[in-house]
């Protein structure tokens, strides 16, 4: 079984549209939506949810006013500016925790001399195991303004891998999130290969460079493709050169085609509508698939 994760650095370059098309083309994959923050893949693959689970992301501190003596030790120790201090009607100092700032480090809990800080687990999202027309899918929804996205991504990947092994699937396809931070790192580490979707703009090039460095940092073999390549042909050339100079495979180019958006509006993947760009996507998938199966990934 091979695990391929699709990432991009910059957002909106077409990760999800491309991945959904690959899911249709490969026909034997388990799909993992690792963009748990702004998940969109379900809009194209319309999963039929079979299992629904809560995600306990971490803990959050809460000051028990009945026990608090107002010493302010928590305020002094917290490094995340999560303790709010104000005076009540009687002029006494009152402390409380801002749950949006609390990182759940437990320092205030441990060092409160009055043992007045409660440390409860918090449900910070949910995750699902579903069936789609392209195969099983594991996906999740992190609560808005929640943290611990990396942990949820790891959980989604772990379950997808188990399902792939149980059902003898050849491929695990993971849709990553934009950026290079915690959820992206959690989605690529230990993967067999990453597909980087670039966009031929100065911003796209800048961000692709960073995400390519990230794959090198973690030793993940990388494929690079360019979406909407004919928007700026010179920059597409540059992306191709960049990819090759950094030891990545250049997997191909997808033309600018409003039919891809048209497909999305119909809830379909590009390759299911035969829009011109689907030809390009098929070539890219052939290129990657041949190399994944050939096991020639270490450049």
């Amino acid at each position: 079984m091979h695990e391929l994760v699709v990432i991009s650095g910059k957002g909106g370059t077409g990760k999800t549209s491309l991945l959904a098309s690959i899911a249709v083309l490969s026909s034997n994959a388990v799909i993992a939506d690792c963009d748990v923050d702004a998940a969109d893949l379900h809009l194209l693959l319309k999963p039929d949810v079979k299992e629904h689970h809560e995600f306990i992301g971490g803990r959050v501190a809460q000051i028990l006013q009945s026990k608090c003596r107002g010493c302010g030790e928590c305020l002094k120790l917290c490094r995340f500016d999560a303790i709010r201090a104000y005076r009540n009607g009687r002029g006494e100092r009152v402390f409380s925790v801002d749950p949006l700032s609390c990182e759940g480090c437990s320092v205030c809990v441990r060092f409160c001399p009055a043992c007045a800080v409660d440390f409860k687990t918090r449900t910070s999202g949910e995750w699902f195991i579903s069936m789609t027309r392209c195969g099983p899918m594991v996906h999740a929804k992190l609560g808005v303004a929640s943290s611990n996205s990396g942990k949820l991504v790891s959980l989604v990947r772990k379950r997808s891998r188990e399902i792939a092994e149980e059902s003898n699937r050849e491929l695990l396809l993971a849709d990553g999130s934009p950026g290079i931070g915690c959820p992206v790192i959690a989605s690529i580490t230990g993967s067999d290969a990453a597909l980087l979707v670039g966009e031929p703009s100065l911003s796209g090039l800048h961000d692709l460079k960073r995400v390519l460095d990230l794959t090198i940092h973690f030793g993940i073999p990388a494929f690079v493709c360019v979406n909407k390549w004919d928007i700026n042909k010179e920059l597409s050339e540059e992306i191709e050169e960049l990819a090759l100079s950094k030891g990545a495979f250049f997997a191909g180019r997808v033309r600018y085609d409003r039919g891809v958006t048209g497909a999305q509006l119909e809830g379909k993947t590009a390759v299911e509508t035969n829009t011109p760009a689907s030809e390009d996507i098929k070539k890219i998938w052939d290129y990657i698939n041949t190399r994944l199966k050939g096991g020639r990934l270490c450049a």
Partner: protein
Amino acid sequence: MTIAVASGKGGTGKTTVAVSLALSLEGSVVLMDCDVEAPNSHIFLHPIIAGEENVYISVPRIDESKCNGCGECSEICQFNAIVVPKNKPLLFLELCHGCGGCAMVCPKGAISEEKRKIGVVEEGWGMGIHSIHGSLSVGEPISPPIIKKIKQKQNTGETVIIDSPPGTTCPAVESVRGSDYAILVAEPTPFGLNDLILSVEMVKKLAIPCGVVLNRWDDERTIIEDYCLNEGIPIFLKIPEDRKIAEAYSRGVALIDVIPELTTAFRELIGRIKKELSSQTGKVEPSCTNLL
């Protein structure tokens, strides 16, 4: 006044809107690019960098000669950054949030703290705009400390435009929190609508009023307009789907240099936000600048 430009989905046009907004405004303006994982505003503003500052978090350093392997550090650490198998501590510093708990709890005083660089903040001037942007080091997972550092650098009297990272979790929350108003940039696709709904939820949680700029608009696809009408969210501006705009963007040209008429539209947008903020009960008029 601080205005955050945000969106759940990536690539909807946050930087396009933030840069054009900053360039349109009169008076002193600072653009804070808080998308430290994929910062792009400098590509449009070409700032000359006047200063840079490294951003660090405090991470533990263990003096093994003092450590007795008791495991208290590993017990307090909620992020699995210290484990103590076989009485010998092992550090995973990328996981460390810098809370300092391990150093505080160690009964032998074996843990001190040292600085670990996670990124850099650069400050300069470009096209008349005070520009501050940060960059997370490749391989580092935690970006909020860099965003905090950027936001500390505001001069008094400046209008602040924040270019937020995509999403609705820690980095986006850290960027948007404390703003007076949020402009949510959305595109009229199913992905765009799904992620706009998430951003609206986020700003509601942070108690920040919001309005929408609709990007890549064409008059056949009204899903965002229908949603906004239903929710009573004003749409300030509709930027048409136009290959010319995409091509100019690709070369690092600001939107208002492609369509100069937009300068007035962006000024009016700020005017409407100011009006809404000054009237305690008033709502922004649901009219919209139409560009086609």
